[in-house]
């Protein structure tokens, strides 16, 4: 059984990612507190019954503010990133951001508002005090999922650089798909694959 293909079939998990993968914002405040605020912001956008614009459009500003998209894209592509030109890097970041937001936003199905419980923040490595892992559980449609946010402090703000759902890392998941594409066709193949993926996902 391929777990990486199992997950996308479940809208609840997609919704969890959509919610969870949305950002943290913080100014000198604790990462966990700002995570809660960010999740609340995303939930408000997702469950706004009066909204007419697609969810992916509504959440994009929040994602851009709270996620470290350059780091996420770089890590998702893997070692091949070093061979991208500056223009290719810019294009890849834009495309990858669009693909990730649209992938999860399009799978979001409004139902009962999920209940989120936050666990104790963890400093995973004493040598890197700017890193935190923020564990949580999301309960939706009678199912509970473990979600861990990995965040990094940059200046006085915290930004998400990975989300782990039931032990599966978002970055590792994308890297396992994008790295083989790079190995076959280089940077242009990665950009073309992202463009193709985006074209197959209309705004909803």
């Amino acid at each position: 059984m391929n777990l990486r293909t199992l997950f996308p079939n479940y809208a609840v998990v997609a919704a969890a990612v959509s919610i969870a993968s949305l950002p943290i914002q913080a100014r000198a405040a604790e990462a966990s507190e700002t995570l809660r605020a960010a999740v609340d912001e995303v939930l408000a956008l997702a469950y706004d019954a009066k909204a007419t614009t697609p969810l992916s459009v509504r959440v994009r500003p929040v994602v851009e503010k709270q996620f470290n998209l350059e780091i996420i894209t770089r890590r998702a592509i893997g070692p091949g990133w070093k061979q991208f030109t500056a223009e290719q890097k810019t294009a890849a970041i834009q495309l990858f951001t669009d693909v990730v937001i649209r992938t999860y936003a399009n799978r979001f199905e409004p139902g009962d508002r999920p209940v989120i419980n936050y666990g104790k923040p963890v400093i995973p490595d004493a040598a890197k005090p700017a890193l935190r892992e923020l564990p949580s559980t999301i309960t939706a449609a009678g199912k509970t999922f473990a979600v861990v946010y990995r965040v990094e402090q940059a200046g006085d703000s915290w930004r998400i650089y990975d989300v782990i759902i039931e032990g599966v890392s978002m970055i590792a998941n994308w890297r396992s798909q994008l790295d083989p594409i790079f190995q076959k066709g280089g940077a242009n193949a990665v950009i073309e694959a992202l463009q193709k993926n985006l074209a197959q996902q209309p705004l909803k």
Partner: protein
Amino acid sequence: MKQQSKLELIVGMFMIVGIAAVVYLALRIGAGTLVGGDTYELQARFSNTGGLNPGSNVVISGVPVGRVEAITLNTTDFSSVVRLRLRKDLKLPTDSIASIKTSGLIGDKFLALSPGADDEVLAPGALITNTESTVDLESLISRFAFGDVKDKPAAAATPSAETPPATPATSTAPVTQ
């Protein structure tokens, strides 16, 4: 007489070389120690290492590059810390990901490293925090197949104080040898 002692000497030397070869192979294949090559150690922090054992393979792109030396429990945050020994010529970027994988559905667990894109590399003894733990397949299947009986919590809980950082060298207790 002289020729006989010469023959005995040759046989003796042959036996010594044979025993040395057997010992070398036993260490190399069985004990999980890479004899004869320069190696260095890294650590990786997981929330669950179920099924991984000392001696398990460490691979990159399917190619064995080292072994798991020990698995210990961090008694502070109850995470699992894995010590790996890798070939010294491997320079892994700091954003490399360590994932626990299974050979097939019910095969042995091994540790897969996915190199990242950072310019900095992991120094000997460094801790990899970008990890994917063992996925509890049975639990996942049963939850998707039969649903979840847990009641919804009444309200979101408040996060409490931060868990202190992992300090594997001082606060871990071995659970496996």
